[in-house]
Structures are given as C-alpha cells and as structure tokens.
C-alpha cells in the first residue's frame, strides 16, 4: 500500500492482508540498497497469524518516493513519523543489517509503542570501507557484486533460495540495481557515520532478540556480540551455517526464532 508521510509517498507491503492498526503490528526493516521483497515470506507468515504487517521501502528505495535519507537518526525519525501517521501501537520491530542501526535508534528514542525488537545480523556500528562507498557512487555493479559476494554465505553463492527454483543472490542483484547509485551510497554513508550504537543499545527497554550468523562477513560474530553485550537482556541465537542474509539463507530457522519471540512478547488476542 501507499501512504503519505511528511508529504512524500511511502510504499509498504502488508504481507497479503489489509493493514489494520488495531492489531499488534510487525514492522520489518530492510538493509542497505534492498527493499520490501527481502522479507516476502516472513511478512506473509505473520500477516496470516493475525498480526498486521508493515514492510516499508525506505525513502528513495524501489517504490517509495525519494530522496533517500542520509543518516540513521533521520531514518529513525522517519519511522516514527510512519508509526504516527498510521497510528500503529504494539509494535514488534524486526530489522536486518542496516535496519538494525535504524532499529537501535528508533527503539531507544521512541519506546512508547514498542513491544519487542529483533536484530538480525548486525553489531553496534557498521563501518563501511571507502572503496565500497566510492564503488556505490561510481561503479554500482561492482558495489553490488561486493555486497552480495560478501553478503551471502555458501547457500547464496550456490544460488539456493527460500523457494524452490529461486536464486536469492540473483533476486537481490535485481533489487539492488533499482536502488543505485544514490540510495545505496546514501545508505552506506549513513551506516558508516553512525556512532551512537552503544548508548542506544543501553537505553532500549523493550525485550530484545539478537540473531547472528556464523558465516557472516558483513557483521562478524565479534561485532554481533558487542551488540549483545550492550543490550539489557537479549535472547541470542547464532545460526552457524548462515551468511549475513539470514532471513533468506536460513528462512525456516529465522522464522521459528522470530515467531517464538514475537508470539511471546507481543501476543495477538
């Protein structure tokens, strides 16, 4: 569905059911250069379990009006505007990669309506090397190749996918090609500039879950464990065989973990 936030069109999928703000709501946040399709199956799963689901494209990305936002703080503000616009209560936030930084800021600054937050494949910060940022600006295909090459673990490089017949790495490439150069470059710069992770993590009151991947080269285990160390009392799982793209590379395990955590902390009637 489309709706206006601060005068700009925002697109979000709702998992195949109409959006209903009277239900507990799961909001999914995608990572750098990606869009709503990253969460396809997971969104649908919750939508058909009596949750309302909102999977926005960040400003500028795929179907949402630009320009892209340039700082993590601004994205958290924007997300709060989305929440207020749609008057969403009882939120479970599910975030991947850059989305986790957005979620750290949002959860620490706007705790009122938050019931739970799930961080997947991230640390407290996401330093991005200058070569990647400059590739995003000047040679987007190279930047995409770097990100997907590093992003996907073995299952991705072998062109597995959550659905038989689908290649998640090729699908990711097609999505990213629609979000370069401006959006990807803005995302990467925003990640690189974000320094407030520690304070934000410590301020989070909502129950938190951290899902890390054993073969993650974008957010290595050490970085993920720093996030764990600074959150008050998170539930932590490391999926050893997965690369960075956990929701796609280990979809069944990931769904089970999200399900158990969200059902417990943000139950539907």
């Amino acid at each position, binding site marked *: 569905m489309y709706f206006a936030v601060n005068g700009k069109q925002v697109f979000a*999928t709702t*998992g*195949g*059911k109409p959006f209903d703000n009277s239900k507990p709501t799961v909001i999914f946040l995608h990572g750098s250069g990606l*869009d*709503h*399709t990253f969460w*396809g*199956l997971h*969104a*649908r*799963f919750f939508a*058909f379990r009596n949750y309302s689901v909102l999977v926005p494209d960040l400003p500028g990305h*795929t*179907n949402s009006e630009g320009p892209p936002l340039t700082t993590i703080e601004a994205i958290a503000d924007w997300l709060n505007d989305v929440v207020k616009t749609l008057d969403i209560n009882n939120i479970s936030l599910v975030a991947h990669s850059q989305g986790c930084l957005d979620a750290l800021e949002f959860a620490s600054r706007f705790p009122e309506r938050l019931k739970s937050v799930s961080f997947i494949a991230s640390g407290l910060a996401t330093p991005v090397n200058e070569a990647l940022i400059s590739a995003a600006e000047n040679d987007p295909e190279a930047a995409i*190749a770097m990100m*997907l*090459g*590093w992003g996907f*673990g*073995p*299952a991705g*490089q*072998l*062109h*597995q*996918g*959550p*659905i*038989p*017949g*689908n*290649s998640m*790495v*090729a*699908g990711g490439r*097609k*999505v990213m*090609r629609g979000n370069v150069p401006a959006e990807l470059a803005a995302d990467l710069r925003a990640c690189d500039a974000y320094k407030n992770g520690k304070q934000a993590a410590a301020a989070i009151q909502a129950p938190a879950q951290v899902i890390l991947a054993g073969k993650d*080269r974008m957010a290595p285990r050490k970085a993920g464990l720093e996030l764990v160390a600074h959150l008050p009392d998170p539930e932590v799982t490391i999926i050893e065989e997965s690369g960075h793209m956990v929701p796609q590379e280990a*979809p*069944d395990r990931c*769904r089970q973990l999200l399900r158990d955590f969200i059902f417990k902390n943000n139950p539907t009637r």
Partner: protein
Amino acid sequence: MSRFLNFDTLSLHAGQTVDPVFGARATPIYQTTSYVFPDTDTASSIFNLERGGHAYSRITNPTVGVLEQRIAALEGGSAAVCTASGMAATFCAITAILGQGDHIVASTQMYGGNISLMKNTLPRFGITATFVDPTDTGGFRDAIQDNTRLIYGELIGNPGLDILDLEAIAKIGGDHHVPFMVDATFNTPYLCRCFDYGANVTVHSVTKWMGGHGAAIGGAVVDGGNFDWGATDKYPTITEPYAPFSGINLWEEFGPSAFATRIRAEAMRDIGPSMSPMNAFLLLQGIETLSLRMDKHLSNTAELLDYLTGHEQVSWVSHPSLPSHSSHKLAQKYLPKGAGSIVSFGVKGGREAGKTFIENVELASHLANVGDAKTLIIHPATTTHSRIDADALVAAGITEDMIRLSVGLEDVADIKADFETGFRAAKRVAKG
C-alpha cells in the same frame, strides 16, 4: 566462497547442497509424489506461500529444484521453473501473462512447434500473433499494437540461423512496456546470457544442448527479474491480487521473481506440465559438462564449415560465423564464442540429391532433434517444418534442398568420412 562463482563452477554446483543425511555427492533422485509435513502449521504455510518447501511433485520437487536453480544461476535469472518439455515452458511462459484479446509480436524464424503454437493453438484461446522478419528489427516496433503484451523470438533462428538484435529489440519492448522473451535453446547461457542484453524472460528446450545427450525431454522458463511489471496496468496476472492464494499480490511480495512465481502458482498447479525427477537428474548430468561440450560442438562446427564450404557437392552453406551470413555481425556481438552448432546447407542436385545424401550417411543420425552429443541431420521441408504452409516456409527461409545438420561430438574426421559416403551417393543421383 566470498564472491560470485564462475560459469563452469555453477554448472557443477549451483542449486545443490550436499545431501545432509547420507552425504550423496550426486544430486539424489527424489522419486516421490509427495512429502510428509512435520506439523499442520508447516503444511498450511507451504500451501499459502509463506515458506518454501515441497508439498506435491507437480508443483515442486527437490531434484527438479536443483535443476531449476542451476539453470537460473547459469542464465543470471532470479528464478526458473522447469517443465515437461520446451513447448510446455513456452506455453506456460506466454499464458502466465497473456489471455483473451492479447497479442504477440514474434519472429518468423522459429522452431515449427513455436510457430504452430502461436499461429494455430493460442488463437483458439484468444491470443493472436503477428510474425515479423527477425532481421528487420524495426519490424518488431511496427507490429506492436495497443493489445501487444509480448515480443518473442529465438536468438538463433531455426533453421535460417538469423540472429536477433537483442539490445535493439529489448529497447523497443522497454519503450512500450512489453516484455521480451527469448527462446535461448540454440545458444544456451554458455554462448549468450540474454538478460545481459535486456531480454526479460528466456525459455529453453533443455532437451537440446543443455541436457546434451538426447536422453530426456525437458523445458525451463527463466525469469530475468528485470521487467518492471508494476509500471503499467497491462499485466494484471502479476500485479493484481490472485484469488487462489488469498489474494496474493505477486509483484509486491516477490518482486524480481513474481513472473516465475505466477507460473509456479498457476500453471504448475492448474495445468501441471511438470518435469519428472528422473529427467531432471539426467538433464543435470548433462549440464555438468555444458561448457566442455559446447566448446567441442563449436570446434567441430568450425571444421565442418571449412569442409562443407570447400566441397564441390555443396551448393551453399549457412552459418552465422561465416562472413557470408547476413547475421554475421550480430553473431560476433552476441555470440563471440561461436554461433552454435546448427549448420544448414544445400546438396547440389536439389531435393533428390538431398534425400539421397541423408539416406546414405551412416554415422549421422537422421532424426527430428538437435543438440544431441551425436551428429544429427534432417530435411526440414518434409519434417520439422512440414506442418506450416508454403508461405511460412518461405518466410522461415526453408528451401527444398536444405539439410539441417546438428554437429555432434564425434571425431570430426569420422563425420567427414561419413559425409563423403553421402556426397558420393548424391553425386550419382545428381548425374542421373
């Protein structure tokens, strides 16, 4: 594995994870109709497209899934759906987006089955086609109507071997919000990855070079993931809610694989042209050596082109790698490794001499197929293209004396020796 794997590696590994139970290195043949669900929630979520997984082998099968992902990987597509045959792939791909009142702009130079499908069968369902000369790129634009929903062609036409100007035709499609679907059977992704030049969907008769051993029939549709279905309201099967799956919006939820998902959700369910696991296994075995075989097909083709062009019994030889071929330039652009292993030529002495040649070779098999490991020959006017009328025959560039050769992997000296026997017999007939 921190970067994209290369073509030969993908030919061997893509789509497969080693069997976690017994460690089988080859892809196991999951010869089963159905799959035991661990619990009701898993069952219902597979049925409702909330999770991947197998329910019934008409829709998905683990062995077929490996083949699908391998073909998607080699082609650079976001998803593939395998079908019982190449024709089934074409039918499913077209009907996934076209219905009553819709129109196709297609090349005149195509496999007889493709022409017949669009000329005879699809019109019965309200889908019509205009056929245009594949060498007249502007003709594709001129033939587009308000109700055109597809541009279709074979990259290497059959049997005239004219090459489509992929980039130019893709641009015409893009300008009109019409997807460009390419039958890539004759080139395989090893010779050309059509998505790199803007094609949006490829279909394959995997029966041919991909499988490569003449052992199993199969087809594949590959979703390029690069067509913006949402930019127009012309493709409601992709962008509008689909009732059988609780009104799912495939474009919203699956984005770059929405088209393939539609085929999976509709054609495989309601029509059911599924590939058998055994055939998927045989075709996978073939794909493992795709590049090795293609290189040998090409080197044998090059030698035979030399031999045939210099032969006194041969009136003409056609292949895009010959400078005399009208598509030579396009072949160099799109098929730099080589323009495939189909050659057509005329035997001096016309129809009778051609027939005698075919009857007297022994190694080359006279049959209606292409892309086998073995050398094949046929007389198109009386076989593969016999069901199309005289005008279409001319339009497809087929002459009475034409012999179509599918160059195999034999020792090329033996193929030449075999042809000598055929040419000697043909010469006697030609002399009368």
